[in-house]
């Protein structure tokens, strides 16, 4: 290989100053999105591993129970500490699984939002109607924001147990509750990213950056959105089916 016989006038350029065909840029960006999804898949696998490992190990039978105090508060703790008897002995408190209905509802909402975005993209590519796309993308964003709100509701209802000793008190979480907090938290981060992307699609299409001819970014977002919806559904199936021992 020498300079003379390897360099020729191959004019396919890249980025800063050189023009690149939109299809070339799209192909590269789509590959990048799939690579990020691959990384996300490994993370999801690690999350499933964590959930199943904790459930399977069930250390000291504490997957859904823990030594603590039922329904007590900081004020109760202070009073107990100041009393002559001191803190009573902790008892094993059991927590039940979280509402399967709410878990499924979140998954359903995300699936619906993915369907909306898919529909919006299809409409854009077929009817070239950027204004309609903008409105429908905004609708998808609102729906996924609903999933964010529902996730916050879920986080507030994760069963916790009042744990205390002579030095401190805290609301602590069993293995099951911990795993659910992780899953809901990670899902919520994904939903927030989707909301950002959806809002971006809506604004960009309203400003003419996404049109019936320039629809590649809509497809990129849709690919990631559908992946998040599928992973949410599968994780929901796992956590609802596999929670009791």
């Amino acid at each position, binding site marked *: *290989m*020498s300079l003379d*016989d*390897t*360099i020729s*006038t*191959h*004019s*396919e350029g*890249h*980025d*800063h*100053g050189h023009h690149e065909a939109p299809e070339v840029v799209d*192909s*590269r*960006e789509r*590959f*990048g999105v799939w*690579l*990020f999804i*691959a*990384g*996300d898949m*490994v*993370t999801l*696998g*690690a*999350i499933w*591993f*964590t959930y199943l*490992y*904790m459930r399977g*190990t069930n*250390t*000291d039978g*504490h997957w*859904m*129970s*823990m*030594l603590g105090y039922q329904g007590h508060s900081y004020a109760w703790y202070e009073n107990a500490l100041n009393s002559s008897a001191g803190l009573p002995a902790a008892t094993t408190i059991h927590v039940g699984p979280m509402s399967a209905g709410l878990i499924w509802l979140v998954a359903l909402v995300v699936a619906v939002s993915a369907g909306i975005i898919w529909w919006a993209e299809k409409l854009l590519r077929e009817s070239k109607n950027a204004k309609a796309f903008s409105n429908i993308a905004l609708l998808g964003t609102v729906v996924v924001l609903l999933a964010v709100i529902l996730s916050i509701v879920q986080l507030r209802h994760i069963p916790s147990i009042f744990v205390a000793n002579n030095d*401190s*008190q*805290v609301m*602590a*979480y*069993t*293995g099951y*509750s*911990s*795993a659910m*907090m*992780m899953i809901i*938290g990670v899902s919520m981060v994904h939903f927030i990213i989707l909301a*950002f992307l959806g809002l*971006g699609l809506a*604004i*960009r299409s*309203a*400003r*003419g950056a996404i049109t019936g001819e320039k629809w590649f970014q809509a497809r990129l977002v849709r690919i990631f959105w559908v992946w998040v919806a599928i992973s949410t559904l599968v994780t929901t199936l796992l956590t609802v089916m596999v929670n009791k021992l």
Partner: protein
Amino acid sequence: MSTSTIEKTVHKGNASGGGLARRQNFLTGLVGGIIFAWLFWWIARLVGDQSSRSFSDLTATSVTLGWLFGFWLGIGALNGPFRWLIGRDQTREDQLYYAGENLGVSRYWKFTTDHKVVGVQYIVMTMVLLGAGGILAMAIRTNLITPGNHFVNQQVYNSFISMHGMLMILGMIVAVAGPWANFVVPIMVGARDMAFPRLNALSLWTLVAAAALLLTTLAVGGLPVGWVILAPITNQAGVGMDFFAMAIVVFTVSTTVAGVNTLATVVKMRTKGMTFTRLPIFVWGSIIAAALGLYAFPYFLLAEVLQLMDRNFQTSFYVASGGGTGWLQANLFWMMGHPEVYVILLPAVGAIFEIAAVMSRKPVFSYKTAVGGMVALAGLSILVWAHHMFTTGWAPTLGGPFMLTTELISIPTGIFFLVLIATMWRGNVWFRLPTLWVYGFIFDFVIGGVTGIYLSDIPIDNQFHGTMFVTAHFHYVFAGSVLFGAVAALAFWYPKVTGRFLNETMGRISFGLTFIGIQVTFISMFLSGLKGMPRRYSSYSMLFEHTNFITTIGGYTIMAGMLVLLAAVITSWKHGEASGPNPWHANSLEWMVPTPVPLENFDVLPVITEDPYNFAEKVDH
């Protein structure tokens, strides 16, 4: 290329592009990070429950989040996403400004997207990380020079051990892949830049943010729990643990982004005729490591997220009283931990193959076997993690299978030696500085590899686990092999970065000191381990006195070698012997472009007609 064209700095800057980025640089990043760290600290104290046992952890974690957000905001990392959101894409002038056109030296302090600038920034970051880790190594060895020496107290010593380990690991991860997968890989494949230039800059500056968090750990109580940060002992650590865990979370974001970028660049941006079998072998090392990193680092990310949740939100992932288990952390850590060894090693192996072929004027021996060996090594590495847990009692029935998979690793590793030696065998070897470090790599990697086979054997591991033998083994792999690969790559591609050779005399002195230092340090450390000296102890029995004294002297010798190398890098940058664009008479594309390499590498993209190792041209050395 005339030497007079080397690094002429023009300060007039791009005429109209850049927007807000014109006012953003490392300093504004630093200021933004500090302001937002303080702001988040203030909010955490305002809304947090001060009677809660996790209050200090919540405050510390908030500070780390504030730092990251503020640093990203200040350096300009969030400009792109924000502009995308509001539909104001960058103009061509903006892109040229971000690429550092006509910005002179200041482009190295900015969120610059040009892959060559990012490569140089990675060289500096590697030196910072390895330098900081090296200073801690000297403190550790000074403490161990005699039994009962108290150069630092035991808690500080423990923190130094942890921080030395993690700084060196992070430094090694980026030592070859960071500078060279950025600087030369896009040119090698015939591309004008990385696939995602902004993500490239993001990965670099996110690494800077992570390094700052990691180093701050020492100032906020340290990390006296060992570098593998095994639970539940981590529960006893102070807020330094929160800083450390967040540093790892941020670091995994950086490596994931970098890995995606490298893979997309090579898969999607190869020029016409650059088939996969015509790729320079270093490119293979880089992309296999990138793919492996994409698999491995999510485990580390999750392990540290769970750590943060246990500390901040009273979850029970690693707490037995709540249904968790320390083995979960051990599994997640080592599922990352062993593939990570090859994320570190493979780019170095690729660079060594590349240099050996060019300096021997011969093709890489059995190119496809070499690539197959790298793929096999990466594949096997994800099936061996439990050999780190042989003595913990976790899943004893799986010991046999994991021993087998670990021993199988020696087959692709053996292939590397075969390829390397056969490449150089009867070659017209050009005995310059990069070649010297290649020889050092071969020698040290034999010792590191062979001692690893012993440790894969359960009965032997039961004896050696937790001893200095293990420490010596993996230091032969990292310090003896990867570091030598990294310096070989530096000496080889330095002329392409600067237009000048790395000072040969200083480089040879550095090699001599480092090579001898490695043998003195780690052979005596093997002997300490064989006699039963445990790892991580701040003091030891008189039985180990002589070998530890020798190890410390060897450690100082390595440091002296590295300081000479640092001096060579600095002095050669401006005053080294001019090299011209292709000093090694190599055939791969990075040597076909002028030095300094122009902004977009190629005026017209090349078409490749043959592989880069056809050395028909006679070269008089």
